[in-house]
């Protein structure tokens, strides 16, 4: 049977992708950011997943105002890096896992989540920057990736409660798939940042770290936090953090298993406008 071995959480700041693509990752500004992922690169290389279920948000790239899905699951065979206006990132095409994705779709929809299934979609920095941070600059991504795009652009995003619950449904779906696959679930976005108005540049280091604490120790409680708290405390784009509850909801302890092991925790300010946060939680074997 397929199983979820670990969850990974990380910011997906576009400037990080640009720095890497332009060979600036060794510069003093960027060096501490990339250093925070040295452990992750080693860790994932030591025990490669077969599939990454990658939770992110589209930033007005694949989805304009014509159509705004709350939860969009990528069931297609492949997904190309998008041209967000600066040209597509020079990274490999993302290869999906249509069989597992379709299985998850069927299971999760029957559990009363109202998914939108997507077979044709370009993926933006929200999805590709985390892959770069974890895998560096390979010729091809070393595993399959199932994109899962969450609307956090037009208010209201799904609630924390809903995100936490769909994580649980995804876990149940993965674990009922008849193939011996190691699946990781990643949630991306955040941490505190605001990209607009007179409050642009807001960083709330204390709140971010408390969020990481609670995500580890009290995810069910954290899932009750209303959107307005994210916005007020972590900036208008800090709302992306609500997506972290999806990966957390998919961990074994939420379904009555043992607590996850915290393999890595990292926090750094700034990357462009944003605080960078990163966490690796591993299910006990």
């Amino acid at each position, binding site marked *: 049977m397929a199983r979820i071995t670990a969850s990974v959480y990380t910011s997906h700041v576009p400037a990080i992708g640009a720095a890497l693509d332009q060979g600036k990752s060794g510069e003093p500004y960027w060096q501490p950011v990339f250093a925070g992922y040295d452990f992750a690169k080693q860790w994932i290389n030591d025990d490669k997943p077969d599939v990454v279920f990658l939770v992110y948000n589209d930033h007005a790239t694949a989805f304009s105002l*014509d159509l705004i899905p709350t939860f969009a699951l990528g069931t297609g065979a492949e997904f190309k890096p998008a041209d967000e206006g600066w040209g597509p990132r020079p990274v490999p095409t993302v290869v999906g896992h249509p069989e597992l994705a379709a299985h998850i779709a069927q299971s999760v929809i029957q559990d009363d989540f109202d998914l939108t299934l997507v077979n044709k979609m370009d993926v933006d920095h929200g999805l590709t920057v985390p892959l770069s941070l974890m895998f560096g600059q390979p010729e091809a991504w070393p595993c399959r990736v199932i994109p899962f795009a969450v609307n956090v652009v037009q*208010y*209201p995003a799904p609630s924390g409660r809903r995100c936490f619950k769909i994580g649980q449904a995804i876990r149940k779906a993965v674990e009922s798939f008849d193939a011996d696959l190691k699946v990781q679930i990643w949630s991306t976005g955040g941490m505190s940042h605001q*990209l*607009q108005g*007179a409050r*642009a*540049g807001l*960083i709330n280091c204390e709140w971010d770290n408390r969020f990481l604490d609670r995500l580890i120790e009290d995810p069910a409680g954290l899932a009750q936090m209303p959107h307005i708290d994210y916005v*007020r405390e972590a900036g208008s784009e800090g709302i992306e953090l609500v997506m972290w509850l999806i990966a957390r909801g998919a961990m074994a302890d939420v379904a009555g298993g043992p607590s996850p092991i915290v393999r890595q925790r990292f926090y750094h300010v700034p990357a462009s406008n944003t605080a960078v946060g990163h966490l690796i939680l591993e299910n006990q074997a």
Partner: protein
Amino acid sequence: MALEKPYKDVPGTIIFDAEQSRKGYWLNQFCMSLMQAENRARFKADERAYLDEWAMTEEQKQAVLARDLNWCMRTGGNIYFLAKIGATDGMSFQQMAGSMTGMSEEEYRDMMLKGGRSPEGNRYLGEDGDAQPHRQPQGKTGSKGQQ
């Protein structure tokens, strides 16, 4: 509408809800069109003519021509859409975000290097943080204006 909008009292912040989305529909769809190189070229060649192809309000067009992102946002723009204008102009996300504060590029970059803007005084309208309306614009531009 009787739905609660608890996000109206956050200073310097416009939440892109359905109401803003309706207001900014054509402005944002214009921005999306700039994801294609051909459209970027046409826009650059004659901005006004290109804008006139869209069902935007005159105010939205003026806001775009002025590259005033705060003004764009008030008329319904969303930052992820407006970023396509910045990309067309060759600006980074940090330059765009900074431009909305009144700070110079350097001032904004320095603020971020020092840990970013503090949330203190910036959570509710009526406090005294640096993002409050009575303290705009920020940076040297602002202090010059106030002297």
